[in-house]
């Protein structure tokens, strides 16, 4: 299906943290592509490494964490080994980022206008008045009423939903090719979540932008994502078309996730349907990380680590699925 160069291509991305006596590996050889205009969902329970994976793409792993990758390319251009200056020009301009919590994502001491204009001027060769009118356009696009007055507002004067709209506007300032949204609605009121997701999808569709949508809400994935990557204990265990994965998940963990897909807008049941807990990063073991919780695990699962293999249309890292028994 991927005939044209993907917007983003990640190969063997690992994120590790150097600690006093050992190195903890929190993300392990993750590989995936994002096509132009595509929405890639990343799901997995808390601590699976979703945020680290998405932050690693833009080189935002705080020390003592570090990134290793065979390659990360943006439209064919490698971005995993850029200097601090170059990677900074990728952030915001080529890749926009949206964080989970709109309440804390904005500088409380500066007006919305200040922050928008500052970001616009960083990336585009515009004068301040030009940047200002662009800021107003952006606010209109993200559905903020009376944008000219809003420019004078401070973040605390806006509601959570409004603030997340401003955050989206900030991420879209320079028309990036890819937007990484890390749980963009988790901190919001349930009633606003769907609106914000819809807004994000609409804006990106209009511009032909791609999205990486990180969430642990399978309902959001089912409604919004074209493809989905499932992460478990720092590894991608299944990647495939959303329809395929939702209807016919191959990996036992994914099937567990599908056990309860809440309708979007309803209170989320956390992904606790599967008994037991995910091994913490840094735990040493051979074999499959999910084996301990897996209902269909075989002897092989505990001794040999499964690789990501093609099974029908998707990629799955599971011995059982690969041998066709679990399907």
């Amino acid at each position, binding site marked *: 299906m991927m005939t044209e160069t993907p917007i983003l291509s990640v190969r063997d991305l690992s994120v590790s943290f150097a600690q006093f006596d050992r190195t903890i590996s929190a993300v392990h050889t993750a590989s995936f592509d994002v096509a132009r205009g595509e929405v890639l969902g990343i799901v997995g329970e808390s601590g699976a490494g979703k945020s680290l994976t998405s932050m690693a793409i*833009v080189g*935002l792993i705080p020390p003592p964490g570090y990134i290793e990758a065979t390659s990360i390319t943006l439209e064919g251009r490698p971005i995993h080994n850029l200097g*601090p200056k170059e990677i*900074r*020009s*990728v*952030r*915001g*301009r080529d890749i*926009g*980022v949206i*964080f989970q*919590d709109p309440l*804390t*994502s*904005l*500088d*409380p*001491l*500066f*007006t919305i206008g200040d922050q928008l204009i*500052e*970001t616009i001027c*960083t*990336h585009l060769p515009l004068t301040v008045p030009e940047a200002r009118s662009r800021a107003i356009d952006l606010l209109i696009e993200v559905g903020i009423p009376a944008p000219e007055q809003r420019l004078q507002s*401070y973040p*605390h*004067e806006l509601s959570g939903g409004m603030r997340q709209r401003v*955050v989206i506007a*900030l*991420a879209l*300032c320079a028309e990036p090719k890819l937007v990484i949204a890390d749980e963009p609605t988790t901190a919001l009121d349930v009633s606003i979540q769907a609106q914000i997701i819809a807004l994000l999808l609409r804006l990106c569709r209009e511009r032909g932008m791609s999205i990486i949508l990180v969430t642990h809400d399978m309902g959001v994935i089912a409604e919004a994502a074209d493809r989905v990557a499932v992460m478990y204990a720092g590894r991608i265990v299944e990647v495939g078309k959303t329809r395929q994965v939702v209807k016919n998940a191959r990996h036992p963990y994914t099937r567990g996730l599908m056990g309860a897909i809440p309708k979007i807008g309803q209170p989320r049941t956390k992904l606790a349907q599967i008994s037991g807990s995910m091994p913490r990063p840094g735990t040493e073991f051979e074999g499959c990380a999910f084996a301990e919780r897996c209902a269909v695990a075989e002897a092989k699962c505990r001794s040999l680590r499964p690789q990501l293999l093609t099974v029908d249309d998707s990629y799955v890292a599971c011995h059982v699925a690969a041998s066709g028994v679990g399907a």
Partner: protein
Amino acid sequence: MTAVGAIAFVLFHYVGDPVEMMVGVEDSAEMRVELRERLGLNDPAPVQFIRFIGDVATGNLGVSYRTRQPVAELIFSRLPATLELVFCATIFALGTGIPLGVAAALYRGRWTGYLADLTTLVGISMPTFMTGTLLIFLFAVTFPILPSFGRGEVVKIGWWTTGFLTVSGLKSLILPSVTLGLFQLTMIMRLMRGEMLETLRSDFIKFQHARGLSTRRIHFRHALRNSLMPVITVSGMQFGALLAFSIVTESVFQWPGVGLLFVQSVNNVDVPVMAAYLMIVAAFFVTINLVVDLLYYYIDPRLKSGLQGRRA
């Protein structure tokens, strides 16, 4: 303020009998009685207190037992010296403490950071009189480039006397200001460092990095401003403390300010002067807290709109 007034009054009411200090050995008993009557010392304590408060409120701080000068006049002639000293010490402390704190936060784990840490350790563990003596030894004795006592030449502007306008006045300010400001400097530096580290960890800073803003902009425009609030509060409160600490510094440097006046008045059991000193220091505390609060409203938009919200 009234509370401080009460404390000042009670403290000094029982400190000693001023009459004993004022009269000569050869004065007769009748003269003592007459003096007591004139000073109102025979009235019951509550009456004396009410009179004291009333006098203070009308600006009448009494007469010095020792020099027989009006206390207000005495204090106001000494006040400029102390205020200029405290002002310079604060400027020195803020001007050095904030950059050092920021550097310590940004260069944490590198030698610049360790150097800054070391400086604070020295500053915080050295008592004021020792710093003062050491500085005098270094810059007035070993290398005689700065005066070690007094204010130098001063220029009179109205009732205010200033050392800012003469070279010797400015030179005289250096050592006492550094001595007085050093402790505050370390406080400000440590606070600044902590606040800055805290701010740098916050989400909005992360989001600014993710938007590709330049590191310099993020550090010095956003992180700095967000870290400044608590530093301003504390330095405001410290301003009052400096006024109090100035007693030691003024003694070491024979600085002719109210601190030195206070030390002298304690030696002489000059109660009205002591009481007036306490009242004035308290007045400054209150005023400065007010100024700091007003500054808050200027800096932090959240408070500003809170105020408008309440008005509306």
